[in-house]
């Protein structure tokens, strides 16, 4: 089996594995020094592939939009903004674990899908930067809605974070690990009509951050079910593990 796993190094660094295969290979990596070294070696090569692309100039307006966005960001040492929690029924105390999760958004939104993410999350959890990131998200007008655990997963906690623009994120913590042949699938519902907006694996005792494929505006319910992997189902078929009502 080890030999077979070793053959997956190329596909792994090219992100060409299914979620199940990826999880399995990661377990192998944890115990195989040779594969870890090869991953580093080959990832350095994939980092250069963008250079092969024919150059195209973006529109002039893009620069202005990015800089305007950067200038609108609050400075880290500014006075902490008043928390603006859109789901007003949630007391600040009950939001605490959710905000803790929401801080991870700051990392997810960063697109920091690289080697140091785990370390950074740990670091942020232990510093005021963590809270500042949370404040920054909320100050930018993001809506944070609690999604409660259901059934055997009643102790799970999740938050749906919807920025003012673009697609949202679901932050999940405390779920049971999904079996290797199943995935968790996120649904947004308008009335009784569900729409699949993402699938994810959950296998570690830390928050998972699930970028959603569409904004949650106009949807009334968010839910997570356990579905056949790796792609999930067209409609919800499995047990509901998280469910929460959204303000339409």
């Amino acid at each position: 089996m080890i030999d077979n796993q070793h053959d997956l190094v190329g596909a792994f660094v090219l992100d060409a594995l299914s979620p199940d295969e990826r999880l399995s290979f990661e377990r192998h990596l944890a115990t195989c020094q040779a594969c870890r070294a090869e991953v580093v070696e080959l990832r350095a090569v994939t980092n250069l592939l963008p250079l092969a692309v024919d150059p195209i100039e973006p529109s002039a307006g893009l620069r202005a939009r990015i800089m305007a966005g950067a200038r609108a960001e609050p400075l880290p040492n500014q006075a902490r903004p008043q928390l603006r929690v859109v789901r007003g029924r949630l007391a600040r105390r009950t939001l605490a674990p959710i905000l803790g999760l929401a801080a991870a958004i700051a990392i997810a939104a960063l697109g920091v899908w690289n080697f140091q993410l785990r370390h950074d999350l740990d670091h942020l959890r232990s510093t005021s930067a963590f809270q500042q990131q949370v404040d920054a998200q909320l100050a930018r007008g993001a809506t944070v809605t609690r999604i409660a655990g259901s059934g055997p997963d009643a102790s799970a906690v999740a938050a749906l974070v919807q920025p003012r623009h673009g697609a949202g994120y679901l932050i999940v913590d405390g779920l049971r690990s999904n079996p290797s042949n199943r995935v968790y699938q996120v649904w947004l519902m308008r009335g009784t009509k569900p729409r699949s907006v993402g699938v994810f694996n959950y296998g570690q005792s830390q928050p998972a951050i699930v970028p959603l494929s569409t904004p949650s505006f106009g949807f009334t319910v968010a839910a997570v079910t356990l579905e056949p992997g790796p792609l999930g189902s067209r409609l919800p078929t499995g047990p509901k593990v998280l469910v929460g009502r959204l303000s339409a």
Partner: protein
Amino acid sequence: MVAEPRGDGELMAAIQGRDVSALEAFYDRHRVLAYSLAMRVLGSQNEAEDVVQEAFLNLWRAADTYRSDRSSARSWLLSIVHNRSIDKLRGRRTRVQAAALEAAMDIPDRTDVWREVSQALTGQDVRRALAQLPPEQREAIELAYFQGRTHTEIAELTEVPLGTVKGRMRLGLHKLRSLLETSQTGMALE
């Protein structure tokens, strides 16, 4: 007297200090590469600009988490652009756990020499090296990296066994590394 342009490391340090002019300089230097990559993956001007905008703003917000000993600033930016582009293409499945697991691994970085070489490589070097790969290896790499295809999908598309696709990806990347090293130094480094 004209000031020397600031290097990426210096710009990242200034960005960490919330210097917007440093972000402007960093954008001006890497905008074409970032946008071209997003366009190559997504093929849509609007989507590509969204991804690039998101990537630079994310870099601005996350500058404090950047580690120069882990990757160059350019690689960091481009990995954000690539991941976001592929996520858009595939319907945004999460990859957080993968990153977290890799983070937990203490992988010795023995790529200093390679890193120096890679910084000096140009687009022409990389295109030339890709062109020298056996066509089937190049195809497997490009379908995965630029089109977000899984190895199973590539096996179906190209009608070859899955094991062959795995081998083409792995061998192709090793061969590419070797070609790139040679293109810079005239000889293999390892």
